[in-house]
């Protein structure tokens, strides 16, 4: 006789905690074949604002952590994800309707992507910054620094876990903190990733995950004055031109929507997209 299973309550992930939506709303998440899987929290404007507050409070610590430390924390996510492969494969098979082997391949690639980006944490500054040979008695150095809070619309296509990881990992490398709106139709792996993050060494608030309708939530993030950048990689189906227009109000750094399975492909440029180059002139004594 089969044991009666205990289904999980899927909630939001904000500030290192798992609250329900303050709105009290949920929406039905269905499997690929249309069966009920879960009631996911339907995030609201207030949830989005709470997430921004959490991301802002976490920014100082995360951006101030040593690059070696950030690299290890990101690598630790890969370690924990590896340990929970089966759960993610299972969720992906159910919600995306893919084969076991395709789902496994997706989880493997998501794990490897954390590893790839983890390795950049203590290197991108060397690659993207440099000393500048200015005329005069100065030591002049340019280094990239994190932009701040990055709001991300996760890819809404087939590969829900890989898309999410591909979008949030590069923003985290430099020390940004993130508010991400998950894949609307396949949000389960996003919330499960939140559980991985919560039990890894990622400080609360560094990644905040909202489930619900991107069309409803993202406009509040695009116009939020304390959000510094907007990654619209998964916003192709939204009114993304309007989102860009509201992002212009506080001159947010904006990445455009991308289509296809290779959206948010791994690249150093994704890390650098959410960095600001700081140039410091130091006076030299005239000897």
């Amino acid at each position: 006789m089969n044991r009666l299973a205990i289904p999980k309550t899927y909630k939001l992930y904000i500030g290192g905690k798992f609250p329900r939506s303050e709105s009290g709303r949920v929406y039905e998440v269905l499997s690929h074949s249309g069966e009920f899987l879960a009631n996911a929290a339907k995030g609201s404007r207030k949830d989005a604002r709470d997430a921004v507050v959490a991301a802002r409070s976490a920014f100082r610590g995360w951006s101030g952590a040593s690059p070696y430390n950030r690299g290890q924390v990101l690598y630790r996510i890969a370690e924990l994800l590896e340990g929970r492969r089966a759960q993610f494969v299972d969720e992906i098979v159910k919600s995306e309707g893919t084969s076991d082997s395709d789902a496994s391949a997706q989880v493997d690639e998501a794990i490897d992507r954390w590893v790839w980006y983890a390795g950049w944490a203590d290197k991108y500054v060397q690659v993207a910054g440099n000393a500048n040979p200015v005329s005069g008695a100065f030591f002049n150095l340019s280094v990239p620094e994190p932009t701040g809070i990055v709001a991300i619309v996760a890819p809404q296509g087939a590969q829900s876990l890989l898309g999410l990881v591909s979008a949030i990992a590069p923003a985290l490398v430099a020390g940004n903190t993130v508010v991400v709106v998950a894949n609307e139709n396949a949000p389960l792996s996003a919330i499960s990733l939140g559980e991985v993050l919560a039990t890894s060494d990622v400080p609360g608030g560094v990644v905040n995950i909202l489930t619900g309708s991107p069309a409803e939530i993202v406009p509040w993030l695009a116009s939020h004055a304390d959000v510094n950048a907007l990654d619209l990689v998964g916003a192709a189906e939204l009114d993304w031109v309007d989102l860009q227009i509201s992002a212009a109000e506080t001159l947010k750094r904006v990445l455009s929507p991308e289509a296809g399975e290779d959206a948010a492909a791994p690249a150093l440029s994704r890390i650098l997209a959410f960095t600001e180059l700081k140039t410091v002139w130091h006076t030299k004594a005239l000897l």
Partner: protein
Amino acid sequence: MKFLDYAPAPESRALLNLKDDYGLFINGDFTAGRGTPFATINPATEQHLAMIATANEADVDAAVSAARHAYDGVWSRLSGSDRGKYLFRIARLVQERARELAVAETLDNGKPIKETRDADIPLVAAWFFYYAGWADKLDHAGVGPNPASLGVAAQVIPWNFPLMMLAWKIAPALAAGNTVVLKPAETTSLTAMLFAEILQQADLPAGVVNIITGDGMTGQALVNHPGVNKVAFTGSTAVGRAIARSVAGTDKKVSLELGGKGANIVFDDAPIDQAVDGIVRGIFFNQGHVCCAGSRLLVQESIHDDVIERLKRRMQTLRLGDPLDKNTDIGAINSAEQLARIRELSDLGQQEGAERWSVDCVIPDNGFWFAPTIFTNVATSHRIAREEIFGPVLSVLTFRTPAEAIAKANNTPYGLSAGIWSDKGSRILAVADKLRAGVIWANTFNQFDPSSPFGGFKESGYGREGGRHGLAAYLKPALRSGSRSIVAAPENTAAPVSKKTVSAKKAAK
């Protein structure tokens, strides 16, 4: 004349032969604009200098077409080393005609000749010389092997450093292989038109650089033109916002260098006399018409009175007057409009309760002038502590601890520049780490160099000008590493798109 007064030492205007009127520079030739021409005046005397053409939409269209034609037909096919040779020629021609350009700039802008002669024009030549050498080395620009140019760049520049801003825009654009349509500011078009003559002397292929003059409408038409691939703007944050809105949904690459409210932080262990000179350089250089000006002085409470006393004494030695005089420190405000804004905000500072002190100096009868002014007892909530005044007006605030200094310095939507004055190296490094600003000067201020990237955090804009990073603003990677932007590319500029999926493993190799 009193003992130790200076005798007048005006620079000669003789080597400058201005025309009565200047047309638009399109496709290598000067043509009449189809809009209504306007006069450009000397802001120090309000005397008429020349008539400047206005480009209407048809002219903008012609300029963009000329740039596109030159891009497709000539410039994108030229080798990097040949592009570089044209830029080297331009650098040399600027050096040869440096004095003439300095005089013209001072007449048209109102800034002192010692600044145009020793800062603006030498930096123009340096900028072209620096980027000339990059033109055949783009593989090392930091955007991957074989980077591609963008196409036609629309560039709109401000009036505070007219020719210097032109150089900051045109030199990297051409080195990277783009062609250009540039619009100078309405009140300072003159040196751009002299520069067009230099381009003719350099025999730069027709249409590679087009210079169109006019007011904000001309700039708007240029930025919004569907045929441009890149928009580079330096100016106010308000206009920058409008540009960011107008390019939404397009494939235009944008760089914005906008306003600032730079904090100049003086710690109690700073060499005070040097700091005082740095404060003066930070806010009174170019009449304070500097986006990266150190317009907020944050001085440690224990040395506040001493610093302010010495600052006032130093300010009394500033010589305000004829910009062509080689001894002049403070020239004219660029326009009546700007003068009105400076007056308005300064009056507001008084009304809000800050204490105003201005240099006691003779203000010339004609022209636009504003005596160097400082406000003490300024609160962070005062408008003069928050808004960019863009004039010779300094707001002084105090702090007790480094943490308070950092918090106050960062308490602004801007993030362009900052200064740190301290004798303690470890403190400078720690404070510099925590300031959210794109350019930080330690024990100096307002230094510029073509090899040094310049640009802002937050609402001071995005993108960098200068250095290797300034080049990247005019380039794109040869391939977009597999991802596909869904934004439609304008005609002739379709980015090469990879059809196959790139896996993490492949990219990791």
